[in-house]
Structure formats: C-alpha cells, structure tokens
C-alpha cells in the first residue's frame, strides 16, 4: 500500500465577528477549501490565551491559525491589537526554543472575505505539507 499523503491538522481560533463569519461565508458561498482545519470560535482574537496555542502545538497540531478582524475593525475596539502583541511574544518564544514559529499564522480576515479565508486555509495546508508533520506529535514525554 502506498504511503498516505501527509494531511496537516490545523487548529483555528477564529473571532466570532470577522474571521468565523468569513469562514461561514466561504461555506454558504460553497467555496471549496481543504478540510484540514478544526475551528474553535472565540468572541475575540484578543481573548485567546497563548496557553491554548501552546497546548495545540505540544499535542501535535501541525499548525495553528489565529483569525481576527482587520486592525481598526475589532468589534471590541482593540482586541486584535492585543492579540498581535501576544502572538509576537509567542512566536519569539517558539523561535528561541528551536520550534518553527511559522506553524502559527495570524491573519486578519473580515466577515466579507470568504474567498480570502478559503485561500488562507489552502495556502496554510500547502505550506504545512512542505514543512511536514509537527515533530512533537509523537513526543509523549512533554
């Protein structure tokens, strides 16, 4: 039997008002995109504690997508700016640990950008296929 092609698993934390609604639009518009994504809806990207991103990566998620409103468009005024700082800190820490921080993507995707949402997932799946599986997936002693 031929080796199965590696299918990345992406955990997506999407804000309720923009990116999640954008994903919804992609669905209702019947835009095709790879089914490699598991979406967790948050009220705001600013409400995402990095502990959950770290947990996903340590458990072996191949990528984490964090989706929020475009700068200036946050439903809560400034949550996405706060998320941006937290992701910058997280990526700095991951890099220093020798872990590829480009497995964590932050993207601003609005409620009207269904096509962009689908494109982002498509691009991310392609990028992760290139990187290969998360090396922590089978590391148990962490």
């Amino acid at each position, binding site marked *: 039997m031929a080796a199965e092609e590696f299918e990345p698993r992406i955990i997506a934390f999407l804000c309720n008002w923009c990116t999640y609604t954008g994903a919804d639009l992609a669905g209702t518009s019947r835009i095709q995109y790879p089914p490699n994504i598991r979406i967790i809806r948050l009220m705001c990207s600013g409400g995402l504690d990095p502990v959950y991103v770290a947990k996903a990566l340590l458990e072996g998620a191949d990528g984490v997508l964090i989706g929020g409103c475009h700068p200036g468009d946050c439903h809560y005024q400034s949550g996405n700016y706060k998320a941006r700082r937290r992701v910058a800190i997280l990526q700095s820490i991951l890099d220093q640990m020798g872990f590829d921080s480009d497995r964590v993507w932050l993207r601003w995707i609005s409620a009207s950008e269904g096509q962009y949402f689908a494109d982002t997932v498509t691009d991310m799946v392609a990028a992760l296929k290139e990187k290969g599986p998360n090396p922590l997936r089978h590391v*148990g002693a962490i």
Partner: protein
Amino acid sequence: MIETTIAVESSTKHTVQALLRSLLERGTVDALLVPLTLPGGTTAPTLVTNPQALDQADPLAPVLPINAARAASQLTMTGHSQKLGLVLRACEIRALVELVKFQQANLDQALIIGIDCLGTYPLADYQAADNKDQVVDDLLAGATSGELTPHQGLAFRSACQICEQPLPQGEHVALTLGLVGVEPGQLYLKARDDLAEALELVPNGTPPGRKAAAQNLIAARTQARDEALAEVRQRLGDQPNMQGLLQEFSACIRCHNCMINCPICYCRECIFRTPTFEHESQLYFQWAERKGTVRMMPDTLLFHLTRLNHMVTSCVGCGLCTDACPADIPVATLFRAVGQQAQAIFDYHPGRSLEEAAPVQEFREDELTSMGERPGR
C-alpha cells in the same frame, strides 16, 4: 533630589538602623517593611512599627528569602492609611514597579527606600555562615571599588552573579542608601527633598568614586550575564523542536514552586492550579495510545511555556524561581535569556519606570504592522 555622604557611626548597619529609626520616630513613615534578623540567624522582610525593633533591622544582610515586592503587594493592595516605608533591593523595586502596573500594589501611601545590593547568598548558606558580620564586611570592603567578591566558602546566587542592575534606579525611589563607590566608613544618601528635610541632610554631592565603581560592577556583571545567557541559548537552540527546553526541564517535578515564588506571577487562580488540567481517566489512556507515552504529571512543558508567555516580558531577573526549584533547574537564567529577546520586541525594560505600561498591558496601532496581513500585499 539631594545627594550627600555621611560618616558611619560604629558600623554601616547601625547607621542605616538609625536613619530608619528616625524616619519612624519623626512620623515620616508609620511603618517600615524591612529585613529583620530573626531567631535562627536568618533575615526576612518584616513589617515594623516599633522603632526599638529596628535594632534587629539588617537591610545589608546578603540574603533574599522572598522577593519583598510580594510582601509590598500584600501590604498595599487594598489600601491603607498608614505611611509605609519599603526597604528594598533593586530587583525587589523592579518587581514592585511591575506589580503596581498590574494593579497588584499601590504606592499612594508608600515610599520606596532602595539599598545598593552587594549580592546575595543562597538562604541556607547564609544561615549556616558563622560570622555574619564578617560576611557583610567583606562585601562592604569590595563595594568601594565595585569589585565584589564573595566571602570565602560562599558563592553568590546565580541570579546575582549575572545581575547588571544592582543599584536602585528611577524617580520612584525616594531614598537610596548607597554603598557602592563609597569610602569605608561612609554612607551615600540620595533623598527626595521632603525626606532630606525630614532627615536634616545637608547636600554635599556624589562621592567621587561612585560612578566608576558602579561602572566597574555593572560591566563585570553584564559580561557574566552575556556569557550565561549565551550558554542557555546554545543549550536551547542547538537542538530543534523544543528538545533543548525538554532537557532543561526534564527534572521538573511540577511542584509549581517557581510560579509561587515569582513576584510577577500574581494570578490569584493560576490556570495550572485549577481543574482545567484534571482530565477524565480514560483520556490519559487515549493520549498514551496516540503518542506511545504520556509523562505524568502531564503538561510540564506547557506549564513553563505558558509561564513564559504570561510573564517573561516583565521578568526582573530576581532569581527566586531558581532558588525555589527543588530539582536545581536554572529557571531564572533561562527566563532571562528568553525575556531579553521578548522584551526587546517592545524595547521594554521591566521595572524601569512606573510611566511605561508592560507589554501585555498595552498596544500601539502603528507597531508590528506586517503581522496578520496577507503575504505579498
């Protein structure tokens, strides 16, 4: 601010005691948080209202049982009418500044009295030392030139060996008790005008040797810091995929002591002390199936990674985490190495000023603008 140098009577310790006592007696402060020598010979931060009790005060004792910023937080957080003087080392002041920013301490009725830190020894080593006066005198002798060498048979705490900010700094320090670059038998004071008046200090300038001695000390410590942090970075970065971090924390027993003793980790309810991470039995077996093994207790790396994410931008390098670790993991050196780079993103210096918000507290619209944007646009 005025600067002056006064002659020491009998010993530096007694002169410091006398200064603190006069602050209490004149009502400049109603209470002092100050290291006090306790039965058993160690010295610990103590809240003092009785001026006589200051006979046992010993801010020069080279020991740091807790970061007293935590004590200051507990004393001031919910408000008090008494005027409180806080006698602190530089790393404690920096931690306190961070706690004020996080609204965990309140300086409305408190004034900070900083003392030059000549380095501290591990608690048990200092407690076991026979001649504590000699231990302090050795440090005072080195302070004049800024070349601080530990007392024979003792070694400074690892955090102190790489501490490049041993002197109290900043507008928020109302009174500095200066030891570095001061001739033997003298004590340098830098006081806010109201305190100078209360203590009847006559300005006579900075001691001539202070600047050079401070530079000496800071240069030596900066070099030691750079070497220690480079070593940690090599251990972390040489191996891909967090294997370095995994090895650093392989001896971690998940006691959470590092978090409990960290002055910055102030959360009343840490997520790691909640049932969030207590799972149904069956789940552990599922995870073991998937990964082959599950280390118990689980989530060791997650704990440390989360702590890094939550507090490392405010890490002041006091080293209490390393002291508290029963497995001798060099937590503080690692956190300082990671913190230095995370803090650099925001050009942030923890504890430097009450005017600067901590990185996780604020944001700027015009920063990090390429993040989150569609690549190639």
